[in-house]
């Protein structure tokens, strides 16, 4: 019987719900593991899960400085999509989408994956051409894409301002129907439980303070709970990548840490059943199952580790919400928060061996890390287990910047605050 099922709910109800096991144990760290993963966020936990489930490596520890899900996995706007243009990105994100489509079943954990579609609005003829190009590139690579015109938009997104009087009138949108949202905390908890049940030790409140090395070879980590040895050490620490790598003597990386803010309103009746993005600026908005509108925009645009942002972006994002949805002016904002993004120099991630022997790096997610969680873990586990990348993550090397193989989806160049 699956651990979570209708039958187990009935069975546990009959015994007063006293026999549920915690979703993961609280083990003491062992002196040594085959693999140590630094970072108990979405990517670290999914890496541990796939190492154990797909690659047979179960003597694994996940070291988390705070508690599971306290970083960006619990701070994002929960959007899942694979509507990329470039060949290096599309197969990877489409692999992620296929893992998402079976994730609740795979984990026996309801991650509330809802394929409600995403509509990227366009507002000028040039932007329409650009979206047509991206849509065609997606279709050529086996991803679903279609155009949505204003009459359909009016029917499907009734609250959307389609009047010709707006500053950037909506001409239409590019939709990926299989895109959607998922419950972000459930993704962390589901992977954590799945990894734990396969023997992975998830060690919370355990901060890595240094690396143990023999020559160049990394052979373990120093932590706030003592020294732990490992044959392989893998870092998946998002915005803290530069800090953690500096502990290993790597002082320069193609990454800057920037703060990205997100916002949530009070709960209202269902009024938006898809994800909408604004092409006149930068806004993405959806409605959670609880009824809150969840949205965000650009990063603040300066280096930051503060996990809180400044007011100009708040004003900017609110003005974009009201441009698209004037009726939302009556809603009250409940919360805003910030997360630290590991902005890479080309806007694409790094999943690779190195930069030292025995060390593996998963970083550079910019603000697109959540949708990548399953494929990131899957590809990182493959890279760690086989000591070579899968073809899906082969382009995401650390040395691509110096070799001239950047994957610059936005064509923005080495200005990470503009990706």
């Amino acid at each position, binding site marked *: 019987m699956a651990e979570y099922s209708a039958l187990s709910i009935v069975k546990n109800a009959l015994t007063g719900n006293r026999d549920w096991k915690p979703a993961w144990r609280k083990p003491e760290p062992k002196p040594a593991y085959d693999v140590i993963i630094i970072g108990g966020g979405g990517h670290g936990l999914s890496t541990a899960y796939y190492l154990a489930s797909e690659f047979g490596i179960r003597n694994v520890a996940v070291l988390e400085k705070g508690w599971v899900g306290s970083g960006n996995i619990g701070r994002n706007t929960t959007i899942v999509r694979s509507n990329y243009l470039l060949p290096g990105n599309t197969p990877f994100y489409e692999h992620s989408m296929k893992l998402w489509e079976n994730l609740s079943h795979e984990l026996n954990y309801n991650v509330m994956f809802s394929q409600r579609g995403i509509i990227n609005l366009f507002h000028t003829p040039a932007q329409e051409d650009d979206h047509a190009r991206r849509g065609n590139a997606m279709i050529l690579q086996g991803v679903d894409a279609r155009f949505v015109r204003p009459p359909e938009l009016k029917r499907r997104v009734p609250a959307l301002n389609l009047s010709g009087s707006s500053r950037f009138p909506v001409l239409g949108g590019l939709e990926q129907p299989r895109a959607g949202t998922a419950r972000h905390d459930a993704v962390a908890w589901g992977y954590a439980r799945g990894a734990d049940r396969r023997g992975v030790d998830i060690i919370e409140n355990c901060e890595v303070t240094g690396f143990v090395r023999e020559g160049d070879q990394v052979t373990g980590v120093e932590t706030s709970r003592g020294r732990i040895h490992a044959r392989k050490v893998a870092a998946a620490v998002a915005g803290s990548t530069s800090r953690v790598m500096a502990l290993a003597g790597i002082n320069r990386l193609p*990454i*800057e*840490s920037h703060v990205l803010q997100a916002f949530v309103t009070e709960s209202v009746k269902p009024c938006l059943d898809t994800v909408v993005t604004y092409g006149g600026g930068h806004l993405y908005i959806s409605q959670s199952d609880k009824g809150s509108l969840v949205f965000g925009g650009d990063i603040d*645009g*300066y280096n930051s580790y503060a996990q809180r942002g*400044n007011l100009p972006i708040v004003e900017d994002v609110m003005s974009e919400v009201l441009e698209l949805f004037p009726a939302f002016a009556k809603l009250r904002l409940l919360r805003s928060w910030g997360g630290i993004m590991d902005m890479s120099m080309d806007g694409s991630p790094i999943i690779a061996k190195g930069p030292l022997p025995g060390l593996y790096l998963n970083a550079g997610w910019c603000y697109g890390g959540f949708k990548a969680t399953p494929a990131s873990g899957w590809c990182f586990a493959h890279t760690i287990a086989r000591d070579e990348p899968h073809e899906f993550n082969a382009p995401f090397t650390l040395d691509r*910047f*110096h070799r001239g193989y950047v994957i610059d989806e936005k064509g923005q160049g*080495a200005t990470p605050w503009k990706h």
Partner: protein
Amino acid sequence: MIIPCPFCGPRDLSEFAYCGDADNLAARPDPAASDQSSWNAFVYDRTNPAGDHAEIWQHAGGCRRHLRIVRNTVTHAISDVTMPGAKA
């Protein structure tokens, strides 16, 4: 965030444009004499510290001067504002 412009006084963040890591920009290789690897390092690699960070901002909505600002990336507190290139 309020940035103290030495020419205009304390002004709101929204008046300023961020131009990146000042120490990196100041370390640009010699265009005539340098090799590929130092250019790659200049264009792509950053120290990205958690703590004091020297950076260039332009007061785009004010005097339009470029400023070298030392700002703490954890607290956002600004400890120094000078003209780029000026001796400390």
